[in-house]
C-alpha cells in the first residue's frame, strides 16, 4: 500500500471513530433533554 493510501485510511478511521463518539453522545443528550422536557412543563 502506498504511503498516501495509508494516510487516507488512517484519517478515515480516526474520523469514523470520532463521529461514532459524537453520535453516541448526541443520543445520550437527546435522552436527557427528553427527560428534562417531560419533567417540566415549558
Amino acid at each position, binding site marked *: 500500500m502506498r*504511503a*498516501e493510501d495509508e*494516510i*487516507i485510511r488512517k*484519517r*478515515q478511521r*480516526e*474520523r469514523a471513530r*470520532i463521529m461514532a463518539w459524537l453520535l453516541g453522545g448526541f443520543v445520550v*443528550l437527546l435522552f*436527557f*433533554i427528553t*427527560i*428534562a*422536557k417531560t*419533567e*417540566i412543563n*415549558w
Partner: protein
Amino acid sequence: MPAIEMSNPAALPADWRDILALTKPRVMSLVVFSGLCGMLAAPSLPPVALAFTAILCIALAAGACGALNQWYEVEVDAKMRRTAKRPLPSGRMQREVALQFGVGLGAFSVLLMGLATNWLAAVLLAVSILFYMLVYTVWLKPRTAQNIVIGGAAGAFPPLIGWVAATGHVEALPLLLFVIVFLWTPPHFWALSLFVRSDYAAAGIPMLPVVAGPQHTRKQIFLYSVLLAGAAVSPWPLGLTGPIYGASAAILSFVFLVLAARVLANRATEPQHMDAEKHLFAFSVFYLFALFTVLVADRFLPW
C-alpha cells in the same frame, strides 16, 4: 518518522485536528464563558441537561462562525503571518469542506437550541451567526475602519442568548451585558491591531490603525474605555446587581482606564515599543472573564 510528501494534501480526507481548528477553539472559550455567565446570572435556571445543551449550542454556533469566517477569508488569511498556517490557506483542506461544515454546524446549533430551550434563544442564535457572517465578515470588515465597532455586536450576543435560553425573555441586565461586550470589543481589538498593524495592512483590511493612524486609534481606545467603564458599573446603581459586582466592576474598570490612558500617552509606532498596547490587550481578556465571574458570584453569594 520521516515526513511523507503528498501530491495534493487538500485532496485527502481532512484531518480531524484541522476540522477542529476551523472552529477557533480559543475564541470559542470566551464565547462559551460569557454565554454561561449570562445564563447563571438569570433569576431562574433550567434543568442541567437543558442548560448544558444551550451552552453547547452557543459553542457550536461560535464554531460555525469560525469555520465560515475561514472559508470566506482564505485569501486574506494567506497574507497574514498570524493566520497563514490555518488549514485552508496552508492547503491542507478543501474550501468546500469548511463551507459545508460551517453551514451544517450553524443550522444544527440553531435547531437544537430551539428544540431544547426556546425559539427566542434560537432566533437570537441564528441572528448572531448571520450578523457575524453577513454584516461583519462580508460587509463591514473589508470596507470600513469602524468594522470592529458594529461587528462587535456579534460577539456580544452570547450572554444575552444564555439569559434568554434560561428565562425565555429579554430583560435590562442581559441587554446591559450585551452593551458591555459591545463596548469592550473596540479597545480589545484595536489594542491588538496596533501591534499587528503590518499584518492587517498586508492583507488590505482597513483596521483603524491602518486607515487613521496609531494616535487616532489610541484616542478611540480611550473613548471606548470610558464608555465601557460606565456601562460595566451601571448595573449596580440601577439595582440590577449587588455591591460585590459594583465594587469589583469599579476596580476592574479603573485598572482598564489606567492601562488605556497609558496607551493614549504612548507615541510609539513600532510594535516592539508597544508594551502599553500589549498590556491593555492582555488585561482586556482578563477583564471580561473577571467581570462576568463576579456577576455570577454576586448572584449566588448571600450578601
